[in-house]
């Protein structure tokens, strides 16, 4: 693997009420941060399915940032807590895939905390630069091709569904 600097690609799932507005405010306040985060708006972080994260990583993202309201400040009462539980389980799964922990992160950024969000993107960019590109095919599929991929994707979906169930079961 080459050690030349690369620009990581981050997919950011931003909740409509806090973090998307924080990102809006970061723009309005002209905060400069790394142009590495490609945003996807969701109504709540609770909508972020584990398979969205895996999909993003599989499709070439080097990292995924999930950003929502602070615990206790969720627009939907406690959607962010649900997201946090899913995230915790998802991380275990990612570890089994050989994906470094820092590639998927969850942050809380209130609508006023533009700086928090911008800093999170910058920090994640730096970490991913240090970690290097993800290279899903090599990392997760060990260079295998189609067959493996199909099996893996079915497994991923099953695991994600299980993880989701597990979370809700805990309630």
């Amino acid at each position, binding site marked *: 693997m080459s050690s030349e600097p690369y620009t990581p690609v981050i997919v950011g799932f931003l909740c409509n009420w*806090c973090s998307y507005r924080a990102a809006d405010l970061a*723009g309005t306040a002209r905060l*400069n941060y790394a142009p590495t985060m490609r945003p996807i708006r969701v*109504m709540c972080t609770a909508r972020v399915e584990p398979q*969205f994260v895996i999909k993003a990583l599989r499709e070439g*993202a080097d990292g995924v940032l999930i950003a929502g309201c602070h615990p206790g400040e969720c627009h939907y009462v*406690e959607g962010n807590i649900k997201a946090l539980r899913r995230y915790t389980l998802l991380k275990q799964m990612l570890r089994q895939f050989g994906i470094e922990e820092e590639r998927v992160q969850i942050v809380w950024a209130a609508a006023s905390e533009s700086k928090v969000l911008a800093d999170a993107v910058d920090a994640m960019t730096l970490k991913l630069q240090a970690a290097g590109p993800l290279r899903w095919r090599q990392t997760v599929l060990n260079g295998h091709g189609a067959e493996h991929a199909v099996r893996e*994707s079915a497994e991923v979906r099953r695991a994600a569904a299980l993880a989701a169930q597990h979370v809700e079961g805990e309630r």
Partner: protein
Amino acid sequence: MSEERVGVYVCHCGTNIAKTIDVQDVATWAARQPHVTVARDYKFMCSSLGQEMVEQDITEHGLTRVVVAACSPHMHEKTFQGACERAGLNRFMFEMANIRELNSWTTRDRESATQKAKSMVRGAVERVIHHRPLEMLPVPINPNTLIVGGGIAGITAALDIANAGYHVYLVEREPSIGGHMAQVDKTFPTLDCSACILTPRMVDVGQHPNITLLSYSELEQVDGHVGNFTVRVRKKARFINEALCTGCGDCIEKCPGKALDETFEVGLGYRKAVYKPFPQAVPKYPVIDPESCIFFQRGKCKACEVVCPTHAIDFNQKDEYLQLTVGNIILATGYDLFDARKIPQYGYGRLANVFTSMEFERMVNAAGPTDGQIVLRDGITPPKSVGIIHCVGSRDKHYHEYCSRVCCMYSLKFAHLIHERLPDTEVYNFYIDIRASGKRYEEFYHRVLEEGTHFIRGRVAEVTDAARMPGEEGKLIIQVEDTLIGKQRRIPVDMVILSVGVQSRHDSQEVAQLFGMGCDFNGYFIERHPKLDPVLTMSDGVFIAGACQGPMAIPETVAQAGSAASQVISLISQGTLMMEPIRARINADKCSGCRICNNLCPYYAITFHEDRKVSEVITAMCQGCGACVSACPSSAITGAHFTTEQVMSQIEGILWDVRETIPLMARS
């Protein structure tokens, strides 16, 4: 899917986007992307010409979907949805790529910004392909309104709405409405007596048939949405039966319990254990404070009960909980004053004759604890010299960076009042800048200058009682750099007034949370738009008025209150409001009846049909968070406008340039 015809519009936003992003390149590139029929860039997409361009293309090119790459959807999503609708396209066949706030404004790197813009556009195109036409949901508006806070903002809004013929619940935390304005002696620059202009309005509120005044009450819980909020209010026990009390005041007269009045008299005066904050209080019923009441503390006394001619005293009264249903809510919760103790070098709380501005306000008020006499802390000696220190806690990075906007003017008013009451007293104003920008403010400043007030420009370093020079003994010495002559000065005075700034309510965060809206860095409620929508918030049906939005004086507060009231009246008169159809729906054929979603819903919007063993979403109660959608193990729940298909496609789209082609990786 191949028959879809997408139109892509890339906005320059003047130079806001075009300066950082090569918009022409994005548009030319977009035109070559799958499904895209037409792609254009334009100076201002949100202008009527820009919107007409979209409408025309929909008709001429038979577009079935529209993508606009411009600012935040929170800014203009509705604008372009309207354009689509006018051209006969369902408003949800539209997607916005936020290449301004989330891109061009956050970087100077033109190349990466352009690349990011392309990926955002591609994501939007891939997503919009899967959009489905949705219909807005009509929501009836409950004509009742809740107003939180009974200061001048709440009073004004309540009267405006009530006069329009609609019912208002006015909730006030303190025993009486009136707010800070009731504490003030005179108002600048006209020197109207504050009580004289305020109390008639308070009386109007108390007597208005359309206003239910809930004083000494606090908001506990808010549920629902615009048009239909359910609010729980705790009416704190007054220990007075309001139905029987006539407000005669006999109980107050006979009450032997006494306590320092820290609220209304800011610690400068005393009140009884049964009290009204001030004589003109509305409502007229007093309150028993169990902390200072001898009966509550020692189990004996009941003097008030004995003298009350109508037997209105009720020591067994309990807090009462009221459930109100309202369509709209106005927050007029006002402000707190900066705590002068936070700046120890100014000596407040340590040096007796250092006063805060509110203390002085009460002192100079004819109805205040000193009957309007300006005296030192000993209660008898009038000061021969007074130093007024501006910007205490304001315009200071250590405390509040912002200007509190009212302190200059009230400090000038103080100077004038001191001259008026004590003509031989010297008055010094220590200021950074005089900000007298309101109507007739500058003229008032000149008047005070002509009256002989000394103005020293410089931030005060210290107030001390350590005398160093003759003439300083027994005085408070104000150490300041006079920046106009570039010299350090020591000014000995008898009395110091700290013109403390305005800050957000200590509990503004909690209140904001209750309503699902935000506070800025300083704790002030965030308006929907600082210039164009100053009284709207991001929560539909929740409005803000007055100093809870930011420091402001009475005229601005009243103007905002009127504006909020007219917003509410306009919503009520519409009768129904169209709500976003972004809701969840359960496919009964797919539902396995596992009930995982039932407990997940924060709004209890999912019911389970025991007979059919399936769950169902109650559409009117669903708020569209999508928690159930992502939890359903059999993918039986669809979150309208945020379907799995839509998000997955957007992920593919935004990663168009970095996708690894893994063969046979069938699209989910």
